[in-house]
């Protein structure tokens, strides 16, 4: 198959987005292996459906695919009993230098999926509200209310956690 200039450009854009996709996936799943599986599925899907891509921003398109794949993954997880350990609340490991990171990680875990997607796309990936609206397929107002709810939730989670943290120290 002869590759035209358009193909090369598409491929290059996909390739250039991989580091950002890995970052986004890592924050979405908070699990390095899962995250990279998700990125790989995203890339395969994108390359295979290149003929379905009718212009526009490749990066947003990839974020869309990854977000949807992750949603599907969570949905199927919800259907089966999970054997993952129950969250450990008396964790002395919370007190180390990692504590801040763990805190935000746990706070993110408490968010509703759509809110977490929106917040990460904005603050971590630097997408505009308009781009996030496209990725999520909702009006900008909905993106903004998801953001607002995510921030309220994280704040109340962190506010609730901190006293416990100090006690551990």
């Amino acid at each position, binding site marked *: 198959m002869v590759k035209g200039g358009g193909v090369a450009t598409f491929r290059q854009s996909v390739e250039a987005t991989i580091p950002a996709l890995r970052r986004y996936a890592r924050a979405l799943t908070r699990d390095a292996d899962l995250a990279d599986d998700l990125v790989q599925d995203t890339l395969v899907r994108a390359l295979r459906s290149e003929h379905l891509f009718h212009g*526009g921003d490749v990066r947003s398109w990839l974020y869309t695919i990854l977000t949807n794949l992750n949603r599907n993954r969570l949905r199927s997880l919800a259907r089966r009993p999970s054997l993952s350990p129950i969250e450990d609340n008396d964790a002395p490991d919370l007190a180390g230098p990692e504590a801040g990171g763990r805190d935000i990680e746990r706070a993110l875990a408490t968010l509703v999926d759509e809110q977490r997607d929106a917040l990460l796309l904005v603050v971590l990936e630097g997408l505009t*509200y308009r781009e996030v609206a496209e990725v999520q397929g909702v009006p900008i107002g909905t993106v903004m209310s998801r953001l607002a709810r995510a921030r309220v939730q994280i*704040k109340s989670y962190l506010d609730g956690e901190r006293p416990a943290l100090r006690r551990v120290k």
Partner: protein
Amino acid sequence: MNEPNSPVREDELHAFVDGELPADRREAVTAWLAENPEQAALVAAWQAQAESIRARYGAVADEPVPARFDLDALMRDGGGTRGRWRTVAAAAVIAAFMVGGGAGWMARGATAAAPSSSGSITADALEAHQLYVVEVRHPVEVPGNERDHMTAWLSKRLGYAQHIPDLQKLGLKLVGGRLLPGPTGAAAMYMYEGASGERFTLYCAKTTTPESALHFREGAGDRFAAVTWVSDKAAYVVSGPSERDRLEQVSKAIYDQIDSDGWKKS
């Protein structure tokens, strides 16, 4: 939309944090925050959240990209480095995409084949397959010679019309069927048997997963394999002995019959 001096709304505070405010409003909001310490604290908290998120995950983008993401390799074996998921028939892939397609962005079509979610149904189906194909006396609840009764019964229980494929041409006789618990309610399993006793099952269940192409998957211990697809909110899993060509032939026949029978819920 806003005059520079109009009162500050909460969504503007978010836009302020995210750099989405026009310059004139940004100044107005900055000035307003200086006089509203409570709101300023809130904004600071949001900014701190964003900082923590970036501090926690930002460095991932600076890691060297692992070799598994080599695009040429991914194109060649379709992400086969994980070894289990492969596209079966190119024609069927295109057909499935067209079913799911439509105008516009097409992201839906592109994300259609979610391995994880259809993977869960495939796992359920393979489990059922493994459990029942070894049964000599009671492999099914309703025998294949009561096809009409079985069709009516399972259509009722699953909530959409069942048309049980006929695989005589492939030398497979309908053993019968049974009702099973599925991921989102009832599921049906139909069993077929060949001249030498080899058994295939077709598992049908409703799903919320979007349309997908055919996927091939090896089952436990590589003794069984399955082909899965999703069409019109129903998932189909054909399981059988792990002989790829034969399984593909059977799956293709079933796929074609389902497609042409209009075996779809409206």
